[in-house]
C-alpha cells in the first residue's frame, strides 16, 4: 500500500485541520503570554515604580531571591500541605466514599446528597469563601454546633488557618471526585463483587482487592486533575484569610499575587508562578509514573 507523498500529506493536513481554530487561540492567547512571562521572570519588570519605566535583564536574580526568602519556602510548604489535605486525601477519599455509598443508596437519598454536594461545587468561589468565613468565625455556625454538643470552640481561622481553608476546599471540590468515581464504578459489573462477597470476602477486602484496582486508571486521572486544580486555588483562600494570620495560609498563588500585584514586582512574581508550574509538573510525573507502572 504505497501512498504517494502528496496524498499522505493531504490526509495529514485533512486530519490536522480541525485543530486549527483551537491551535490559533491557544498559541496567540495562552502560549504567547506564557512565553513573555517566562522571559519576564528573568527581568526586574514591575507594574509601577522604577521597574515599570525601564526594566532590565537580571538573570537568575529572581530565582535566587525566592530561594533565599523565608516567604517562598513557607508558601511551598503550605501549598503542599493544602494540596495533600484537601485534594489528595480529602476530596479524593470523600468523593470515593460518596460514590461507593451512592451506588447502594435509595434514589432520593442519592438525589439529595448529590444536589447538596454539587451545589457546593457550582457556587462561585468568592461566595464560597465568605460562607466559610462566616461558618468558621468565632461566633459562626460551627462553634454554635460544637458548643451545642458540649465540645470546645475555637477561632478556627486563627488557630489552624491552613487546615480551615483545606476543609473549605474539600467542601467545594468533592463533587468533582464524586462524579468521576460514580462513573468509574458504574462500569464495574455487579456480578464480580457479588461473587467475591459470596466467597466470604469482607466489604473492606472487596474494596481494596477488587474494586479499587479496577478503577485504578480513574483514580490516577482524578488525582492528577484535582491536584493541578488545587495548586492554583486563589480566590477561596484570599477571601477567607487573605493568606493570614501573618502568612500562615499564604500558599504559592497568594504569595505570587502579593509580590506581583501588591508590591508590583512582576518579574519576581512570574518567577514564583513558574516554580508553581514546576511543582505541578512534579506531581504530574509522579502520577503518570504510578499509572505507567500499573498498566504494564
Amino acid at each position, binding site marked *: 500500500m504505497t501512498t504517494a507523498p502528496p496524498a499522505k500529506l493531504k490526509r495529514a493536513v485533512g*486530519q490536522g485541520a*480541525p*485543530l*486549527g*481554530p*483551537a491551535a490559533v*487561540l*491557544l498559541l*496567540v*492567547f495562552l502560549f504567547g*503570554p*506564557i512565553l513573555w*512571562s517566562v522571559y*519576564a521572570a528573568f527581568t526586574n519588570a514591575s507594574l509601577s515604580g522604577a521597574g515599570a519605566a525601564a526594566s532590565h535583564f537580571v538573570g537568575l536574580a529572581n530565582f535566587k531571591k525566592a530561594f533565599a526568602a523565608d516567604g517562598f519556602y513557607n508558601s511551598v510548604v503550605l501549598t503542599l500541605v493544602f494540596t495533600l489535605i484537601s485534594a489528595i486525601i480529602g476530596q479524593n477519599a470523600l468523593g470515593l*466514599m*460518596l460514590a461507593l*455509598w451512592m451506588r447502594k*443508596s435509595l434514589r432520593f437519598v442519592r438525589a*439529595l*446528597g448529590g*444536589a*447538596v454536594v454539587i451545589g*457546593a*461545587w*457550582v*457556587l*462561585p468561589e*468568592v461566595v464560597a469563601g*465568605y*460562607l466559610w*468565613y*462566616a*461558618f468558621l468565625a468565632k*461566633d*459562626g*455556625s460551627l462553634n*454554635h454546633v460544637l458548643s451545642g454538643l458540649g465540645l470546645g470552640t475555637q477561632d478556627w481561622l486563627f488557630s489552624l488557618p491552613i487546615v480551615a481553608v483545606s476543609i473549605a476546599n474539600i467542601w467545594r471540590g468533592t463533587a468533582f471526585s464524586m*462524579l468521576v468515581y*460514580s*462513573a*468509574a464504578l458504574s462500569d464495574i459489573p455487579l456480578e464480580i463483587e*457479588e*461473587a467475591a*462477597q*459470596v466467597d*466470604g470476602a469482607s466489604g473492606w477486602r472487596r474494596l481494596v482487592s477488587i474494586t479499587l484496582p479496577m478503577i485504578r*486508571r480513574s483514580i490516577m*486521572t*482524578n488525582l492528577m*486533575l484535582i491536584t*493541578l*486544580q488545587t495548586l492554583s486555588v*486563589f*480566590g477561596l483562600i484570599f477571601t477567607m484569610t487573605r493568606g493570614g494570620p501573618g502568612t500562615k495560609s499564604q500558599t504559592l*498563588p497568594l504569595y505570587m*499575587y502579593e509580590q506581583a500585584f501588591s508590591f508590583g514586582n512582576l518579574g519576581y512574581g512570574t518567577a514564583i*508562578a513558574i516554580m*508553581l508550574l514546576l511543582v*505541578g509538573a512534579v506531581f*504530574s510525573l509522579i502520577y503518570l509514573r504510578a499509572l505507567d507502572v500499573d498498566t504494564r
Partner: protein
Amino acid sequence: MTATNAGQTAQTARVSPTRPRPRTHTTHVRGRLAALILANVGVLAVAAIFVIPLLWVLLASVNRTAGLTVSLPDHWTLDNFRAVLTPETTYRPMLNGVILCGGAALLTIICATLAGYALSRFKTRYKRPFLLTILFSTGLPITAIMVPVYGLFVQLNLIDTISGTMLFMAATGLPFAIWLMKNFMDSVPVTLEEAAWTDGASRMKTLWYVILPLVWPGISVVAIFTFVGMWGNFFVPFVLLLSPDKLPASVSIYTFFSQYGQVAYGQLAAYSLLYSGPVVILFLFLSRKLGGAFAFGGAVKG
C-alpha cells in the same frame, strides 16, 4: 433489592472445598441490609454537614441587619433583594456575564470538539506528550499571565471589547476542554465514520451528522465545566474590560465593598444567591438532559 439479588448470587456462587463455607442466605441479607443502611446514613450525614455553611447566605439575605454571624434575622425582609435588583447592580452585569461566559463557552466547545476529533483520529507519537502538556497547563494560575495579556490586547486593539475578552476566556478553557472531548471522541468507533465515508459523505458532514449526536453528552460536560469556571472568574474581565457597563457579575460583586472596607453583608448575601443562579440553572438543565448529574463523571474517568 436484597431479596432479588440474593437469588442471583446463588446462581453465580462458586463453591470451593478449601474456602470457608459460603454465608447463608440470612447472614447475606443481614449483612447487606447493614451495608445499605450505612450507605444511606453516610450520604445523608455528609449532606447535612455540607448544608450548614450554606445557611449563612440563606439567612443573611433576608436579614436587614445581617452580619457575618449566622443568626436568625430579627427583622425578616426582602429589602436586600429589592436593593440589589437594579439594572446597574444586577441585571446588566448578569446579562454581561451570560453573554461573555456563554459566548466563550460556546467558542470553547466548538474549538475543543474539532480539536478533540483531530487528536482522537490523528496517528502520531507526539500525541501523548502534547495532551499531557495541555493538561498540565491547567495548573497555571491565570493571574500570572494577565499583564502580558493586557499588553497583547492593547496591541491588537482588543482592550475593552467583549469579543476580545471572550476569545481569551475561550482560550483558557481550551486545554481541559480538548482533553475531555478527545476522551469522548475515543469512545466513538472509527468504523462508524468509515461507513459514512464509503457512502460518500465528506469529513465535515460525517462529523456533524454521525459523530456529534454521539458525543453530545461530552459536549454537555465540557459546557458545564467551562461555564462554571468562567462564571466565577473575576480577574480576567476585570483586567481586560474598562467600561463599567461591560463588566460581568463576577466583577460587580465588589460594589458591596465600600471605601474603607465596610461590607454590606445582607446585600452581599442576596446578590450571591442571584449570582449563583445561572450556573445552578445550567447545571440542572444539562443534567436533566443527560439523565442525571452522575453522567458528568463519565467524561473524566479516563
